[in-house]
């Protein structure tokens, strides 16, 4: 059941000793980059000052802005000739960030993806359909190489073309898929349209859900419709990509591969470490990266560490499902709201379809929240009163959770926007 038993079940003290040794190396490597070289000189930090794991706090945080300001090569710690690949994050705001990898970097990344997939039960006998965009985005290639290392047969389907995806699953007996959760929900309606039941007409057993925060309810919906086990995963291109953290068969939090990364959770306002088990912003440090080491990176993702050991025997600590991003947080009439909260509520309401969109408007001095919700095709019976009832229920349920009365508009299934296959959740029209 373990890909690398020794490292996955390593006792905590040994793991921490390994982390410290690797941290020292990583800091030393980083100091040869323009960015960290200058930074360490400025604050007078010598890599030899790192003598305990807590000393990681002597290093200032690195932010996405730092990566942007030193675009493209300011973080390189090796000569350009040693690089074999670049990836780039989809820059929704400002310039995209670029991450460079050496061959060793790619191999280490591939290994943790393979470790993650193996942990969920994927083996060489599996047929793995990778329903993710290949290219600059790390989701496609990251999983591809991981699955190849496990030895599964890969169908590099890429994203989109729903009918062909289903055809491929049937023709080649796909057993495992990697898919964006909102797309998995969308695909379920295409299954129904085609009269194909994934439970009886396919051999699907495992789904890797990634690239989008989602609620427990969404996972349940996907598991029930497809008749499989769906595993949550976490990753970001600055820390390789997918495979940073992954659920084990107990599906209770995602193990962060601490032999590869140092994980911290800090208060996003004070930037002080939070007490064990408390929520905050995830901060990560690469331990094995050669091409572009990144230290204490503020991920902007909000989560908490789940205290205590996991039943699976792995000693690497778990983080909870991502609760939102610090920059996703909406402030409306002084209330903090995360889109994932809205999703959680909506997915509990029968009749709600697969997608929703939050639009914020300013009306005079008032902020207005409009929630557009797709109606489930099967729910529609032609009865206006039933739709009106659904609309009222959504208003009431959301109001009880976010304490703001939203304006709810029901829209036709499949009409809300998507970008790169990911659902667009928020449009803020309040800026002047």
């Amino acid at each position, binding site marked *: 059941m373990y890909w690398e038993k020794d490292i996955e079940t390593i006792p905590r003290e040994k793991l921490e000793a390994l982390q410290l040794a690797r941290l020292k190396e990583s800091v030393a490597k980083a100091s040869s980059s323009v960015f960290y070289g200058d930074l360490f000189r400025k604050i007078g930090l010598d890599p030899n000052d790192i003598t305990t794991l807590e000393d990681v706090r002597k290093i200032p945080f690195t932010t996405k802005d730092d990566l942007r300001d030193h675009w493209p090569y300011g973080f390189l710690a090796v000569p350009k000739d040693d690089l074999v690949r670049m990836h780039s994050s989809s820059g929704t705001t400002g310039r995209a960030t670029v991450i460079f990898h050496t061959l060793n970097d790619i191999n280490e990344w591939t290994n943790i993806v393979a470790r993650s997939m193996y942990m969920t039960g994927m083996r060489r006998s599996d047929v793995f359909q990778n329903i993710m965009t290949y290219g600059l985005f790390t989701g496609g290639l990251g999983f591809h190489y991981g699955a190849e290392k496990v030895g599964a047969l890969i169908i590099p389907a890429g994203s989109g073309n729903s009918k062909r995806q289903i055809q491929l699953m049937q023709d080649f007996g796909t057993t495992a898929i990697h898919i964006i959760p909102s797309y998995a929900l969308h695909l379920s309606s295409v299954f129904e349209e085609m009269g194909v039941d994934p439970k009886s007409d396919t051999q699907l057993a495992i789904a890797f859900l990634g690239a989008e925060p989602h609620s427990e309810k969404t996972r349940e919906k996907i598991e029930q419709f497809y008749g499989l086990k769906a595993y949550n995963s976490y990753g970001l291109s600055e820390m390789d990509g997918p495979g940073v953290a992954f659920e084990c068969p107990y599906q209770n939090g995602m193990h962060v591969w601490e032999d590869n990364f140092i994980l911290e959770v800090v208060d996003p306002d004070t930037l002080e470490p939070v007490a064990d088990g408390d929520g905050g912003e995830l901060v990560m440090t690469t331990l094995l990266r050669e091409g572009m080491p990144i230290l204490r990176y503020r991920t902007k993702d909000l989560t908490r560490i789940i205290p205590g050991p996991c039943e699976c025997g792995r000693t690497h600590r778990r983080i909870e499902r991502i609760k939102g991003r610090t920059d996703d947080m909406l402030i409306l009439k002084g209330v903090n709201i995360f889109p994932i909260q809205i999703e959680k509520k909506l997915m509990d309401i029968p009749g709600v379809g697969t997608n929703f969109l939050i639009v914020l408007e300013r009306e005079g001095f008032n902020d207005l929240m409009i929630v557009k919700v797709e109606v489930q095709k099967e729910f*529609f019976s032609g009865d206006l009163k039933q*739709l009106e009832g659904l609309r009222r229920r959504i208003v009431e349920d959301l109001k009880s959770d976010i304490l703001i009365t939203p304006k709810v508009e029901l829209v036709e299934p499949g009409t809300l926007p998507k970008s790169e296959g990911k659902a667009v959740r928020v449009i803020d029209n309040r800026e002047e």
Partner: protein
Amino acid sequence: MIAYQLSIFAEDKPGRLAKVTGILKKGKINLRAITISTSDTFGVINVLVDDPEGARSILEEAGLTVSMKEVIAVVIEDRPGGLDRLVQLLLENGINVGNAYGFVLESRKKAVFVVDVGDQLEKTQRVLKEASLETLDAKALSAIEPFHYMNY
């Protein structure tokens, strides 16, 4: 006899009705009757057509959300009191009408009143039969056209 009504979910934005009629025209589907009910930002377009199955499939192909419902198309006399007779009959028998609309078949002679009675379908049919009121099914509805023209 049972007739079939198609209901189409439509957001209240320009062009939705035109989209529906455009698709039906392209599919050479004849409209018998159409009603629109709206609520704030969304609504439902109900259509009675000569080929409900065919219409449903081309509307769905075009990405619309469609639901097909059984309704009763009652032939009534097109004269004062014609509709009243039917409505009183339904009331006497405790039949609730959720949605209803009518159209003229032959001016001053015959009209059709379409009623959506929800789960009281069988009972309504029985009551109408006992009162000797004629009902039309999809086939009969599609055959209306020639009579219609003959009056002109």
